[in-house]
């Protein structure tokens, strides 16, 4: 306390919080050598206040006449280079000074008539012409910048020949005599001044000039060591700069390539990781070995999707555009004038393009496996496979029998499986498969195992489900309202012309569909309706096989074929589902609600019941997301009544429920979703029966 440090405080540390004392009595008055802090500070000694005089100011009487109230302030802030006038060429920069005025007065009394404004303009033009001539001459002589801006160089007037000068003056509109006199006056004044008379053209004070009356020197950093010599060889410098530019460009290219390579590496790593997972899964899950290839395919599909996404992003990053139908437009292609119309422009932006559905995935059956594999799907896969084997066996038996009769086998349409009856499906407790942080799988001995962590990566499954959720949200987000009218249609049509629809077939299909609806409504004619639907589907699919999937959102023309395509796809069951293998918004849900024969009872409220389509439904990520686990159902009957079903089950038409912006449906076969489809496709819906009798999907049907 009594030490020296107590009254020689350390400097205040700016970073250290200082206590704020509100009450002075809290201060320790016994501190140090007993000095009371209150005495030292706080009562600030009063000092005489400095009086600052204000310079005398008087009002100028003529002000109101000199300056006119013509200014109108803009609503917004004044902007730009001083408005009109500061850079206006029409404004004569030069202002006459006393000398000029006096001379002009004397000159005019001599009989000549020269107005002051004209005189001003003449002097100004002379100055400009002289400066230009001097600059030209020095440039031709190869003078450096420093030489060109030196005071002596700028003072010279002999670069502007008299004839030239007189020409300039005559342009202003002076008579010969006056021009000559003005030139003589100007030349004399220039010589007397030894510098341009227009202040803007005067040489700046040289940096080495120490006369304090000369002002506005160019400023140089004095404290910077002058390690470089002045650049005085612009040619070489330019070459150097050019080569440097080349180098930088090359480096940029290399870096881009490196980035690409690293991306590939990353993808490769992802692939290997997937592969490892699949291997491990194969090893640990021998029971599901049937789905090993599926799993591998699934992994591949996922990887493909990811890579394709990466490629798309590359396109977008490079400034290109992606159209809804997957067409890529190079960044160099400018949208045409029609496309740049304001109502269309927002949809050509990259953000929208990014949201646009990716190109249709390869139509492979295995693509039907959706993300992440869940128990019901696996089981469905399994049962379906068994069921298909049974169908195949049956068919081959039939073929054999036919071959024995030397007759060709009846051609099987694309809807063969549908016609043959839908596969049975498992029923899983609701919500179990998607409990968020857990995943169901079939363990050894047929046990159902609930995983909380991924068995191989040991990551909590929450991450996967989050990803899934994000994806689901992505799917369920409404599309921006697209412009009505022909603009967008025209655009899409041009990029991807609509396929030809056989009008006759379509009409027939529509007619039959209408009939089918009537039939089902009456409740009795289920079989008739089913047959009609099947016929319609065939007709439509026949007319436009292969156009599926390339449907732009909101394209009314494309919608009709889409239904047909979906119907066809339903025929090749997974094929339709493949539409949704990629994170596609334009997925078509096909509902092979087959096998509704007789037992279905023709279906009073059938359409209202959310029907979970077994295969196709599971294939769609959207439906995986929230499975009302569904009376997937229908298929179960296929096994039992398989033999007599072929015609009756024709009701297995596909509902291609397109997600449209207006109808925010999951495409799950609800009435709303069906509404998005075509009349053709709808034909199938009413023909579905009510909730079919629940069967144990664990018992695969026997052929």
């Amino acid at each position, binding site marked *: 306390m009594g030490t020296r440090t*107590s009254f020689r*405080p350390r400097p*205040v540390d*700016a*970073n*250290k*919080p*200082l*206590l*704020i*004392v509100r009450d002075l009595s809290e*201060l*320790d008055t016994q*501190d140090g050598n007993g000095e009371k802090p209150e005495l*030292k*500070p*706080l009562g*600030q*000694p*009063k*000092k*005489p*206040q*400095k*009086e*600052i*005089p204000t*310079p005398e*100011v*008087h*009002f*100028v009487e*003529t*002000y109101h006449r000199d*300056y*006119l*109230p013509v*200014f109108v*302030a803009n609503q917004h*802030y*004044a*902007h730009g*280079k*001083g*408005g009109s006038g*500061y850079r*206006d060429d029409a404004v004569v920069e030069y*202002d006459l*000074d*006393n000398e000029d*005025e006096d001379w002009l007065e004397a000159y005019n009394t001599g009989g000549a008539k020269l107005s002051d404004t004209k005189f*001003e303009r003449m002097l100004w033009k002379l100055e400009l012409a002289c400066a230009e001539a001097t600059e030209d001459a020095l440039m031709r002589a190869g003078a450096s910048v420093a030489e060109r801006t030196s005071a002596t160089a700028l003072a010279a007037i002999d670069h502007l020949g008299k004839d030239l000068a007189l020409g300039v003056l005559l342009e202003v509109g002076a008579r010969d005599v006056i021009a000559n006199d003005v030139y003589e006056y100007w030349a004399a004044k220039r010589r007397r*001044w030894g510098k341009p008379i227009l202040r803007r053209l005067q040489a700046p004070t040289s940096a080495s000039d120490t006369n*304090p*009356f000369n*002002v*506005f020197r*160019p*400023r140089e950093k004095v*404290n910077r060591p002058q390690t470089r010599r002045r650049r005085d060889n612009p040619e070489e410098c330019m070459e150097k700069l050019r080569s440097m530019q080349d180098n930088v460009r090359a480096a940029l290219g290399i870096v881009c390539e490196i980035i690409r390579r690293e991306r590939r590496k990353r993808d490769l790593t992802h692939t290997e990781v997937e592969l490892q997972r699949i291997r491990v899964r194969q090893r640990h899950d021998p029971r599901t070995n049937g789905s090993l290839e599926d799993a591998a395919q699934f992994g591949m599909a996922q990887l493909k999707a990811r890579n394709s996404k990466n490629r798309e992003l590359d396109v977008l990053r490079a400034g290109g555009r992606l159209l809804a139908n997957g067409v890529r437009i190079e960044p160099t292609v400018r949208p045409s004038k029609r496309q740049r119309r304001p109502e269309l422009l927002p949809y050509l932006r990259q953000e929208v393009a990014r949201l646009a559905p990716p190109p249709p995935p390869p139509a492979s059956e295995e693509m039907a496996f959706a993300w992440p594999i869940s128990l019901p799907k696996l089981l469905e896969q399994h049962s379906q496979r068994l069921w298909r084997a049974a169908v195949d066996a049956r068919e081959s038996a039939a073929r054999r029998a036919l071959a024995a009769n030397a007759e060709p086998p009846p051609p099987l349409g694309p809807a063969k499986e549908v016609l043959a009856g839908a596969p049975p499906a498992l029923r899983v407790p609701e919500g179990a498969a998607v409990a968020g942080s857990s995943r169901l799988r079939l363990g050894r001995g047929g046990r159902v195992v609930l995983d909380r962590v991924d068995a191989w990566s040991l990551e909590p499954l929450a991450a996967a489900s989050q990803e899934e959720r994000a994806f689901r949200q992505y799917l369920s987000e409404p599309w921006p309202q697209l412009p009505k009218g022909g603009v967008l249609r025209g655009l899409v049509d041009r990029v991807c012309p609509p396929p030809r629809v056989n009008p006759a077939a379509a009409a027939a299909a529509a007619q039959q569909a209408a009939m089918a609806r009537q039939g089902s409504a009456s409740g009795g004619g289920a079989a008739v309706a089913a047959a009609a639907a099947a016929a319609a589907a065939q007709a439509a699919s026949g007319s436009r096989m292969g156009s599926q999937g390339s449907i732009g959102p909101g394209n009314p023309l494309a919608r009709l074929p889409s239904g047909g395509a979906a119907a066809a796809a339903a025929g090749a069951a997974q094929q339709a589902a493949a539409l949704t293998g990629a994170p596609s918004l334009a997925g078509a849900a096909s509902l092979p609600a087959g096998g509704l024969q007789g037992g279905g009872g023709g279906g009073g409220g059938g359409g209202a019941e959310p029907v979970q389509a077994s295969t196709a439904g599971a294939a769609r990520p959207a439906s995986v997301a929230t499975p009302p686990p569904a009376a997937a159902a229908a298929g179960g009957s296929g096994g039992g009544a398989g033999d007599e079903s072929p015609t009756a089950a024709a009701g297995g038409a596909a509902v291609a429920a397109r997600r449209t912006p207006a109808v925010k449906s999951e495409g799950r076969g609800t009435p709303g979703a069906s509404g998005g489809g075509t009349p053709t496709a709808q034909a199938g819906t009413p023909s579905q029966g009510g909730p079919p009798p629940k069967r144990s999907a664990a018992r695969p049907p026997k052929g």
Partner: protein
Amino acid sequence: MTASRRGGSEKGADSEKGTGSGPEGATPPPLVQSVSGKGVGKGKRVRLAPSEGDLQAAASGPLQSAPSGSDAPVPMAVDSSAAPSTSGRGPIPLADVKLPLENNTKVMCKWKDGNYYGARILERRPTPGWEGAPDAPGAWEYYVHYHKMNRRMDDWVATADFDLATVEPEVVELGPDGKPRKKSRVEDHSSDEEHGDFDPQQLREHEEFTKVKNIDVIQLGPHEMHTWYFSPFPPEYNGCKKLFFCEYSLHFFKRRSQLLRHLSKCKVRHPPGEEIYRRDNVSMYEIDGRKEKAFCQNLCYLAKLFLDHKTLYYDVDLFLFYVLCETDARGAHVVGYFSKEKASEEGYNLACILALPAYQRKGYGKLLISFSYELSKLEGKVGTPERPLSDLGLVSYRGYWTRQLLPLLMEREGSVSIRELSEQTRIKVDDIMHTLTHLNLIQYQKGQHVICAPPDLLKRLLAEAGSPGLQVDPGRIVWSPYSAERELASYRP
């Protein structure tokens, strides 16, 4: 600087002014007049004078002199006997006085308030338009500096204004080598009040060069203003007493006819550059010295007339000018400005600041200061005015700092570090330290520093710091910090 040489009588009214003592009572502090000697185009003055000297002086200053309170410049009421006594020599007899008087003669001279003050002749010249005998008393007029008054009071006077009984010729003292010894003229400015922390050598050079005010009066817009200081106008303007400034482009002319001719051509009714702030009829324009060289140079010529320690040595390229305007039906009238380096290595957010005389004492100076800090806030940088500060600048800035810091201290509970205060106000740490120390709010307690902030004391100090003047509304500033890259990208020669 020269305190040790001062007699007791001089240590009066003004000896403390150099320290920029806090304003007294509730009277508003003086409007900022000149802040910095390092203005536009100012050379790199390396010495950044520390302010400790001020603080020490503040702690030990005598208090006997009351403020005069008059509107007139305080004539430092030195009684007539005091001035001669400082030099130790008496006046010569009246009979020995020879006209015209030589330069550097000391003599009592009548000031415009009618009293006689000690003065020194700086310059003389034949009276313009004098028709009488060349040796008559009226044939010459003299430029005098009043003893211990600010140089802004220097003026041309006639012989009749002198009290010739007090003439005291300059005595050339011979040094040991027989040559006339250089007299230090700083003693005439013994109260180095208005020079802030300049060193004597430079001060002497500066005063020699700006000894005689060249322009007496300017006319700018509706106002005719008397000037204060020398300004290095181009040589064509030598000998000119009155200049006519165009209110918009700030071009200056010797005759009114020239101004009118120019006005008929001048189309713009506001400064060039970008308007970055507008509130009611007050606007702020940002002008790039490189792009609008003519305007900015004109502005510098004009400002120098009212700023002592501003030099126009260097060009305006490296500065941005923020010109404050009042707008009415006749356009935008320049009220004041401050300049700012485009890229300051030392973290300065302001170089020179001026409110034109016609608009002084209206709070515009405070507006300019707080605007400079608002820009610093937008930049996210801590800023400080360029050093050295003049006395008046110091007072104004201290007022601003006080008004910014004390409310924070009032609200704040517990503890606060100087750095935090700096982050919030964008006032440099050193300046905060300086302010708090100056107000004696930082105390040393038990080995650590504390901030004393009793509410009543803070309130009193705030009241003493004066009104905040015109307030800046930060929401109306439309501005982005200067970016050399952006400028280069849009550069067109």
